[in-house]
Each structure stands twice: as C-alpha cells, then as structure tokens.
C-alpha cells in the first residue's frame, strides 16, 4: 500500500446519486475501464450506495450495473452510509498495515462533507468527488497521483491509459439517460413503498417501553428535577466557558468509547463493545444520551486549572463548594443528588454547530436553569427555550472576565421575564460581596415566554392539551 492510499472509494449520498447523469457517468467509466482491463487496487474499500432504488433499475437496464460490480462497486445499501460517517470496519490486515507503517490513508467519496475524522478514523483526510472520479481513484488507489496525466494502467499493447481515455462524453451520458431513465421505474419503486394502505392500529396508544433498552426509554420530562420549580435562585456554575462553544462540546455525536461515561453505562447494561454504536443512535435513551453532556475531551472549562493557572482540557468540572476537580459526569451526578440548581457562564456564540436538541436537553437534565453568555447561536437558543432553560445575555462589553467570575459564586436571577426584558443576575461571591449584573432576557417573543414558563415545548403542549380536553 502506498502513502496517500485511497482506502475508501464510495459512490454515495443524495448529493450526487439523485442526479442520473452522475450515476450513469460512473457506470460508463467503469465499462471503459473493464474493457481496457483496469481494476480496483486491492486495498480500496469500494461501495455504491444510491439514495434510491430507482438507480438500480436504470443502471441494470442500461447494462451498467454489472460493469460497476465488476470493479467492486456493487450496491451495498440504499442509505447514507459513508457520507454519514458509517463507512464500516476496514479489512483488519489493511488497518494494521496503516497503523504499523504510519500510512497516510485517505477516502474519496461523492458525498457532501469531508471534515477530518468524519468518514473513517483511519482515513486521515477525505476528498469529495463526482461518482466517475471516485471510480477513477479506486483504480489509481492513491492520491499521490496526477489523476489527469498519470497512467491508470496499460492496455494490451502496453500503452498507458489515462483518465481522458475512459472519461465518458456528454453525448454518451445523455443518450443513456434519455433511453433508460423512465417514469415507470419511479412508479415501480415508489407506488408499493408509499402504498401504506390501512395500517393496523396499535393495541395501545402507549408504548410498552423496554426497560433494558439503551436506545429507547420513556423521557423524564415530567419527573425528578424537570417536574420541579425552576426557582432561578442559588445556582452554582457547572462550567465557565470561553467563546465558540459548539453543540459538539455540549453533546458529541460520534462513536462511544469504553472509557467514557456513556461507555461505562453501556458496559454495565451488558452491551458488547463492538455494538456500542454512536452517541447519535442512543438519543432516544436519556440515560445514555445525558452521559454525553460536555463529554467532549476538547472541552475547556475555565473552572478547572492546573497549578500554573492554565485551563486543563478535558470533560472536567469542579464541584463547589468543595472545590474538588472531577470528570464532568461525576460532578453532574453529585449535583443531581444534592438537587443543586445550576447555571452556565459562557462567552460569545454559545451553541453554534449542528442543530442538536440534545445540546439543550443534556444541560437541562443536569439541572441547569440558566445560561449567561455574551451571545447565542440562533437555533441553539430556540432549543434552550424549548427545554425550559433561560438564555441571558451580558450587556455589550461585559463578560465573565470583566466580572472576574471564577465559578465559586452563587447566582440568582430577578426581574419579570418578558420578551427581551432587562433582568438582573445577582452574584454572591464567596467573600460575601454582592454584585448586580444587568442582562437581557433572551426570550425573544411572547410565544417563547409562554413556552419557557410552562417548562418547555412539550410541557406547554401538555398543559394546553389538558386545559382544552379534561
């Protein structure tokens, strides 16, 4: 295997497989490659995952599916697959060689995202390309290659074959699309799929929750801390954070490791490690999902510092008033046991990134009642309101630093919560000092106030529902 090896070549994603021209072009380039005796390099994990079953029909009828199969691009799924980071395991021998030789391995996919580490942990970098180009890279087998000029192989006479000799012309592509992509195929696939007919009604309107499931669990929004009053009094900071806290810090999505809080829980529940799955798949079970709260090892909680005063990176917190530094999860559990109301103090652009509701659910379940930040991401702020967490904004120019907030303080919020009202955060320092911090209430509309006061979107709905029907 060469350095720069392409270990994953995936024709995948709705981005490109919903365009028949792209899929047909991949089939045509495969046909020419097969004619000329080219083949995929043995270390390339090839796959074809169209976003619809119609692609199989027109590729089959055009005689192009067998051409792709011959090159290793048989259909592996009709789903998001590699584009969603679900590339699956590598051949163990190939993986070992990558580790042993410290190889720089890559992925080429026809998807829409290529952030480092997203596609596969051993594909250090990923590249987005059209489906025919993905096929070409499976043949080349490496990115240390001039894809336009270098020989992909040689023909029977020993002459070099380059990309332009196998690249299909627009006329060839258009002729196939015109002849083989037909309305009947869409009807053949979709009419039965959407003929949902008379669905047999469930025996009970209530779900029979499986107590052992780590995927689906009755949500606790009417129990424990969530059923209690949010007094916004005597709150201790769970974390004091800087700017640009993302939803990936607040509730990561990726694979669950055994040494994490969620991993320990899954292990305790009897799940084998190879079936831990990702945080994302467990978001229907709050007992797993809440263990993702602040589980990101890149977190910088300013309450946790080393002897030189430097902030320590990690999923860490400091339990107050004891001053004990622990893993974040242990701090949350300790506060939950004490029924300690919590808050978070943060910098600018709090909650940016993927629009992940668990980033709000997780802190609420931990007992966080308010977040005081210099600014909020648009979607995350609405998620906080939807979970009954109060977003409060510092006045311009004021920050956690101007108030020298170190996490030992206790906070109260006073004032009438109306849209964008001026409220006061009263901060009690350890030394007895009392500081008043003016903040803007980031419940922006009357609707948001009504949702917040009920305790969140679901509680609002339940109250209105019961008021109207009982």
């Amino acid at each position: 295997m060469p350095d720069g090896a392409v270990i994953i070549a995936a024709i995948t994603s709705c981005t490109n497989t919903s365009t028949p021209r792209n899929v047909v072009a991949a089939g045509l380039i495969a046909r020419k490659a097969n004619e000329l005796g080219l083949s995929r390099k043995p270390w390339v994990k090839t796959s074809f995952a169209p976003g619809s079953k119609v692609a199989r029909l027109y590729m089959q009828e055009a005689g192009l599916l067998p051409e792709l199969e011959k090159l290793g691009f048989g259909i592996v799924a009709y789903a998001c697959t590699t584009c969603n980071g679900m590339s699956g395991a590598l051949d163990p021998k190939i993986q070992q060689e990558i580790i042993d030789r410290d190889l720089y391995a890559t992925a080429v996919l026809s998807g829409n995202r290529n952030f480092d580490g997203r596609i596969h942990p051993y594909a250090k970098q990923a590249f987005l390309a059209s489906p025919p180009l993905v096929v070409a890279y499976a043949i080349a087998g490496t990115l240390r290659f001039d894809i336009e000029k270098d020989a992909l192989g040689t023909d029977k006479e020993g002459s070099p074959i380059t990309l332009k000799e196998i690249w299909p012309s627009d006329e060839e592509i258009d002729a196939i699309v015109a002849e083989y992509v037909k309305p009947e195929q869409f009807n053949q696939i979709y009419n039965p799929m959407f003929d949902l007919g008379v669905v047999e009604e469930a025996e009970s309107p209530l779900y029979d929750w499986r107590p052992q499931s780590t995927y689906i669990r009755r949500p606790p929004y009417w129990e424990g801390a969530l059923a209690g009053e949010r007094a916004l009094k005597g709150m201790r900071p769970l974390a004091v954070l800087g700017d640009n806290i993302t939803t990936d810090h607040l509730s990561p999505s990726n694979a669950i490791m055994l040494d994490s809080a969620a991993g320990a829980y899954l292990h305790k529940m009897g799940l084998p490690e190879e079936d831990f799955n990702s945080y994302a798949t467990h978001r229907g079970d709050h007992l797993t999902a809440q263990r993702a709260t602040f589980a990101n090892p890149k977190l910088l909680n300013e309450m946790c510092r080393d002897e030189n005063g430097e902030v320590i990176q990690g999923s860490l917190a400091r339990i107050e008033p004891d001053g004990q530094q622990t893993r974040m999860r242990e701090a949350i559990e300790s506060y939950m046991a004490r029924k300690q109301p919590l808050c978070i103090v943060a910098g600018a652009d709090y909650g940016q990134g993927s629009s992940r509701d668990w980033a709000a659910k997780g802190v609420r379940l931990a007992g966080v009642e308010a977040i005081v930040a210099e600014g909020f991401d648009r979607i995350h702020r609405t998620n906080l309101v939807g979970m009954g967490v109060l977003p409060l904004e510092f006045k311009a120019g004021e920050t956690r630093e101007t108030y020298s907030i170190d996490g030992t303080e206790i906070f109260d919020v006073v004032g009438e919560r109306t849209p964008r009202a001026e409220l006061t955060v009263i901060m009690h320092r350890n030394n007895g000092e009392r500081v008043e911090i003016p903040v803007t209430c980031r419940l922006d509309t009357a609707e948001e106030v009504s949702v917040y006061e009920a305790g969140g979107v679901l509680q609002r709905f339940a109250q209105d529902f019961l008021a109207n029907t009982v």
Partner: protein
Amino acid sequence: MNTNYRKSLKGTGLDYFDTREAVEAIQPGAYDKLPYTSRVLAEQLVRRCDPAVLEDSLKQIIERKQDLDFPWYPARVVCHDILGQTALVDLAGLRDAIADQGGDPAKVNPVVPTQLIVDHSLAVEHAGFDPEAFEKNRTIEDRRNEDRFHFIEWTKTAFENVDVIPAGNGIMHQINLEKMSPVIQARDGVAFPDTCVGTDSHTPHIDSLGVIAIGVGGLEAETVMLGRPSMMRLPDIIGVKLRGKRQPGITATDIVLPITEFLRKERVVSSYLEFFGEGAANLTLGDRPTISNMTPEFGASAGLFYIDEQTIDYLKLTGRDAEQVALVENYAKTTGLWADSLTNAEYERILEFDLSTVCRNMAGPSNPHRRLPTADCRLPTWLSVVLPARGKRRKVKCLMVL
C-alpha cells in the same frame, strides 16, 4: 385557515389565496419586485396568519424589514431515524404524561404530516466487491438497531399523521425529491406551495424544485409537528445569477464544488439563496438538486430554484401523475412562482457565477469549500502541502509536542 383573498384556481376545482392582491393592497406594485422566497412566505401568511397581525407580518416582507418575527407554518415535517426518532420518543413520553394526568393519550398526534425515513443507521461493514454485501449489511443494521426499529414501527401504528419508510429503501432527501414532495399541495380544497422542515441540514435538497425546505433541530421539528408555528424573522434573500454553459465532460459535482467555494467566500451565512439566470435555466435535468443539496456547505439556509419547464420535466420523469404536474404549472403561472414572472424580482444583493469557468474538481481535504481542481493534483505544492511526506509529518508532530 383565513377567508380573505381566497379565490378559485381556474380549471382545477381548487381554491388558492391571491397573495398578489393582498400585497398590492398594502403597497401597489410591490408583488412584482418580491423574490420567490418572499412570495411563498407571504402566501402562507395570507392563508394562515392570525388576521390581527397579518398586515404587520406582510409589511416585514414587503418593506424588507427584519424587526418582527412572523409565523411560518410548514406543510410537512420530514425526519430521519436519528432526530426524528428522538422527537417521536418525546411524543410517546408526552402521551404517558397526558395519560397519567387523566387525559386521552390517543389524542396526542402530530397535526402536520410527518414522514420518517430510516436512512442513518446502516454501516458498510461489507464492501461492494462482496456480492452479498447488501443483505449482510442490512442484517447487521437490523441486529444493532432492533430496539430502535421496533419503536419506529410502533409509531407508524400508534400515531396519526406519521408515515414511516423503513430501513433499506433509500435516503430521505432523495425520496423527498423523487416522490414525497408534490411541489404544490392540494389540501382541504386549497392549493398552496409545498414547504417543509426537516431534521437534517441537507433538507434543502428539494429547494431545487422550488420547495422551501429548511433544516431544523429536533425540538423545533416537534414544535411544528404539534401545530405551533415556527417563528421566523425575514431572512437575507440573495440572488445568485448563473451565467454561461458548462464545458464538455463537466459533471454537476464539478459545478457545485466551486459554487461552494465561491459562496463561502461571499459570506451567505443563514441567507436564502435564489439561483436564476440563463445558466440556471440550462442546468440539465437532475443537476439542480446537487447544487441545492450543498446549501449548508455554502453556509446558507436555503438554495432555491424557481419553478420552470425543467421542474415540470423532472416531475414527469419521476412519474408524478399528469393532474399533479398540471396543477404545479397552473398554480406557479397563476401566482407568480413561474420563472418568467420573476424577472423583476429585486434582491438587496446579487452574486454572479459563470458556469463556463468550471473545470474538473474535487474538494478537500478537511472542508467541502476547499476546492481542488484535478489539474492541480500534479503540482508539487499539492504533494507537499496536502499530502506531506512521512518524514515531514513526524517533524510537525514533534513541534506540536514541544
């Protein structure tokens, strides 16, 4: 539903809301200048908005102000099996709570049609050179996700207005494009533009058909499912004029990657983009979705194309029935959503992109907007910067340790 401005849509037996008239009553001559997005948002206000705040809400759109939230009532909610499932777990929990307090849990249902497609759970454990890869991968998927799929199947039988497309059938956005979106809805005797929210950032895939479709978080999707409006502030609406024709041998992927690079640089964060111009009209069948799909990579919220002949051809190709296709054309032409009637649309900002400049491209590493022309793959800079030699990498590592 409101009653003012409701009229009969010729030749269909359906009614529609005359948004043009409602807008012109506030400011004569205004409708012609409105972008596509504004026309669709105004329509749903005229149809659904509380009459007490209708005029103020419409004025936000007409006067292009961004100082007041107005309601948005999406016609559908589409979900995949990650966030959609958590939303439905919440609703099932809500039923338990209602039952505990003496309410009738069976009455808790999404009021907006909700479609859940299971597409996020399959891992490619077996590659495409294994002839049985598909069956093997599906078996593993079912094993790992048994609890989840059991619940998802139950939701289909227990909730009204929830349709489930089980695992193994395709990707949510592509099924939305090829089948689920009618482009123009016909409900309760009224025709109106299809719109949706989806629990995935690539929901704008079907913006390519002129359907406003936006990616949202799970809680916002729950809000919409339960019939509460999604409150929105008028977004920045930016025109993207596509000029020229692509060169031979250039795919839709080659085009969308430089557009991504270009729009990132132009900072279109959270805006609604509208692609138009001769280049947009020339984009062949099926190419537009590739462009709309990467809307979140542009940084934008929506990436729309007007409804035109290409839209109609695509609907026909994908087997939509003739009556529905005729309704789309009729409605779009009657209400000013057809491309020809948007030539006077005014944008605060217009960006231009020339399709004839596009070469063969990839993107990477690390970012979708980091375009990499294949012609540059031979350059020494590409070899040294993108794929540093092993020795060099080690050095970098050491530096980081120091």
